[in-house]
């Protein structure tokens, strides 16, 4: 049975990506019996949609990277259940939305294909997401090093965790690695509003993209510390991205990978002690305005 959703699409009509967002919203609304929020009317008269937003899970459909719809949601403290960005979907499919508002000839097929890939997610199946098979494999950090700066306290696990200089970590157990972001990065991003983890089955290269994380400030691309195949994602952060703010090394982990080349990857990683030195320099530089 289809769930009830409330869809907030991009309202941009000056670019094809905005028009594609609208097309997808219409298709999804028809298939799932969902309601569409007009972004313009919502900003003018938000009470018009208050009860609707209480009833259904919010799905945001952004057009381009300007992310107007996401920003409207963030500015109004709306909790986003799922998000689709048409520009990202276009990249995945080598579809090239033009700068013009007119929808190209291949647009209908493109929108159909995007909906086909997302349909299982919205029809209760949660396809493409698998729960962690080894939930008990990764114990939390036993000991943290702490760096204090003004009112900020930054924690770094001392054992079992490796970091890249892009502030992402991997915890390794056998040939499995659990990845996430550091306490320093989560504090820099401030309140995290949405996470897009890599899809299970995705092959990720060391320093390649392992999803995105979004705060009120910006979208941030996560830089994988290791090479491997994604075998699980943290379902909990999809529903509650604030877990990353609360505890980035335990409840806020992002994905688990089957590691394929850790010995080689390790050469480019820092242990907790060395990462703490990098962190101190970053904090000092940040406060010096560099």
């Amino acid at each position: 049975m289809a769930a009830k959703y409330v869809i907030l699409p991009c309202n941009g009509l000056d670019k094809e990506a905005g028009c594609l967002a609208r097309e997808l919203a219409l298709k999804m609304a028809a298939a799932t019996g969902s309601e569409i929020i007009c972004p313009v009317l919502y900003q003018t008269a938000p009470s018009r949609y208050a009860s609707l937003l209480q009833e259904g899970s919010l799905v945001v459909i952004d057009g381009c990277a300007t992310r107007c719809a996401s920003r409207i949601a963030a500015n109004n403290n709306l909790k986003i259940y799922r998000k689709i960005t048409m520009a990202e979907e276009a990249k995945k499919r080598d579809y090239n939305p033009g700068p013009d508002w007119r929808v190209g000839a291949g647009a209908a097929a493109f929108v159909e294909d995007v909906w086909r890939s997302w349909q299982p997610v919205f029809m209760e199946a949660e396809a493409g997401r698998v729960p962690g098979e080894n939930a008990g494999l990764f114990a939390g950090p036993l000991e943290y090093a702490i760096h204090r700066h003004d009112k900020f306290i930054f924690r770094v696990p001392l054992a079992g965790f490796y970091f890249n200089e892009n502030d992402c970590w991997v915890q390794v157990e056998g040939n499995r690695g659990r990845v996430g972001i550091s306490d320093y990065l989560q504090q820099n991003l401030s309140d995290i509003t949405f996470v897009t983890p890599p899809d299970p089955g995705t092959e990720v290269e060391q320093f390649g993209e392992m999803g995105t994380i979004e705060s009120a400030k910006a979208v941030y691309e996560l830089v994988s510390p290791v090479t491997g195949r994604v075998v699980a994602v943290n379902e909990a952060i999809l529903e509650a991205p604030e877990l990353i703010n609360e505890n980035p090394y335990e409840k806020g982990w992002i994905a688990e990978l089957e590691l394929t080349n850790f010995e080689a990857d390790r050469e480019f990683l820092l242990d907790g002690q060395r990462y703490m030195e990098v962190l101190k320099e970053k904090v000092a530089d940040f406060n010096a305005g560099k």
Partner: protein
Amino acid sequence: MAENTFMGVPREKITWAPVIDYSRCNYCLECAKFCPHQVYEVREEEPRLIVANPTNCVVFCRACAKTCGPDAISFPEKSWVLEAIKALRQEEGGK
């Protein structure tokens, strides 16, 4: 360490920086507002936005490109840059 090197390689030897496609850029300046490292510089004359400090750019960070509505910012291929960093590390005798 953090400000001068990346993975032990002097930052100025690593060719990682944004490239602006001026045919797409609409000078919304979202990228410049976002970047905390002063990579971009806003000017009065044309072009109004330039990559003024490329070596300030955090290697492998593409966050500014994700703020760009017209998709006017690009970066080098990560795999290519990583291979170059590995080669530089070998040249310099490791870490």
